[in-house]
């Protein structure tokens, strides 16, 4: 991207405006066309009977159902419940993961001492804890949040540890020789250089948190989109089921966009983001 942006600037005087407009136009056209083609194929395949309508309803029916869901209060309540679990899970993971990561990352001893326990706990699939969560917290919001927080804690913690360890030693030494206190060093050196890693951690954790919330709703029946999907399936209401699956995907997509935009905003000053912003 960097080179094309640079070329655009240098060619800016010669290339008239329409040139760029055409290019932007085709850049927008291709994805839109591809989405339309896929949607069209879906409709065609089902209408032509390649896939039975009892398995997958036609696209128009599903998208129509999605729009009618958008007008219903129950749908938005379910979305709200899912988002509530997502936000609490992610929030708890950040509040615990970032400080702990900074602590462990900045000490060689602590890092070595906790490396094996972390490596052991991290790959435990958090879904293995679903039965435990049900026993201890029941089938409500607490279970959802516990699972989401547990799962998204690890990417948060590990990204922060990486980030803190990646601080340029020259910068730390310079700060030391200028007599900056430990706290000032954390504030002015460690934190800013760890922020890109932490931001990546937030992005990963956000996705993980949503996955776990929906899983909890599906498997243990906590209120939210996941439960609605399962209800629609067991009721044989396929159009609603597919519409809700689409809605869940869109929710994930939007949350991705939001966290990426937030990341760009927070990291505007950072080299990795400059070309994207340009």
């Amino acid at each position, binding site marked *: 991207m960097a080179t094309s942006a640079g070329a655009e600037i240098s060619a800016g005087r010669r290339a008239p405006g329409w040139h760029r407009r055409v290019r932007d136009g085709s850049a927008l056209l291709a994805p839109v066309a591809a989405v339309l083609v896929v949607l069209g194929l879906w409709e065609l395949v089902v209408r032509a009977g390649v896939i039975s309508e009892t*398995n997958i309803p036609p696209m128009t029916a599903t998208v129509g159902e999605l729009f009618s869901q958008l007008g219903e209060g129950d749908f938005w309540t379910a979305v709200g419940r899912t988002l509530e679990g997502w936000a609490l899970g992610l929030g708890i993971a950040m509040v615990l993961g970032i400080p702990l990561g900074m602590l462990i990352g900045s000490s060689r001893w602590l890092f070595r001492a906790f490396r094996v326990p972390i490596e052991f706990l*991290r790959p435990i699939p958090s879904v*293995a804890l679903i039965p*435990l969560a049900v026993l201890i917290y029941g089938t409500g919001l607490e279970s959802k949040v516990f699972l989401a927080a547990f799962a998204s804690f690890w990417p948060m913690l590990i990204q922060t540890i990486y980030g803190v360890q990646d601080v340029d030693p020259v910068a730390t030494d310079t700060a030391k020789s200028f007599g900056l206190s430990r706290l000032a060093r954390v504030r002015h050196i460690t934190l800013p250089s760890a922020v890109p890693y932490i931001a990546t951690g937030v992005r990963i954790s956000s996705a993980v948190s949503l996955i776990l919330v929906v899983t909890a709703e*599906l498997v243990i029946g906590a209120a939210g989109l996941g439960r609605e999907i399962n209800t629609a399936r067991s009721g044989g209401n396929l159009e609603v089921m597919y519409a809700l699956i689409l809605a869940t995907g869109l929710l994930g997509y939007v949350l991705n966009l939001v966290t990426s935009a937030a990341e760009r905003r927070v990291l505007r000053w950072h080299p990795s983001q400059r070309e994207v912003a340009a």
Partner: protein
Amino acid sequence: MSPRTRQLVELALEIAVPIGIVAVLWAWTAQSDTFYYPPLSDVFDRFADNWLFERVGSDVWPSLRRMFIGYFLAAAIAIVVGTALGSSRMLRRATAPIVEFLRSIPPPALLPFAIVVIGVGDDMKIFIIAFVCLWPVLLNTIDGINGIDPTLKDIARVYGISGRDRLLRMTLPAASPQIFAGLRLGLSLSIILMVISEMVASTNGIGFFVLQSQRSFAIPEMWSGILLLGILGYVLNLAFVIVERRVLAWHRGARASALG
């Protein structure tokens, strides 16, 4: 402190702290009469009863088989498709919204879809595992191929290397560090999906066992299953790291990573 003693102390810490944690848990739960946290010795007993090696054939093997089939299927498809998408700017642009959308669907939300369309057998579980592992590998392959040093591409062109040689000796090796990053993410996802798919619709497997134990209030059994899943995740991750180190030995970045 000399570097040598320092190293020894660090190694001692690395060994002692986990042992210490287990010892504390052992002592703490030994007198426990809470139903949910049985004494650690009970959990270990059940672990030995169930998993060494009574249920290996009936539960562990079916689980692992589904997981590996799904995982390798996903890896193969993702690397092939990712190579194609990574080499063409137009294709990449066109498919970006679809890839982004499919990837954003929380995988468990697809379970009802898979059950309706494929049924509740092994195929459904393999499908769901493969579908989910596909995205991290695909995206990383695309990025890896897209991000190949232009100088390298120019050199390949100048020397007239093309076709198969170009793909096998330049493109794929240059993208392999990123592909491996994706494969690693995919591996941990495949374990997660293995468990979820068994919890929702299954008659065997580790996930099924854990959920079944909880439902019948066999708490030490449940914990032994969770412990097994932890060990499994750890061992698979370790095996992956070993393979990655070997394959990417030439790549400096692989050695610089501190946390394994």
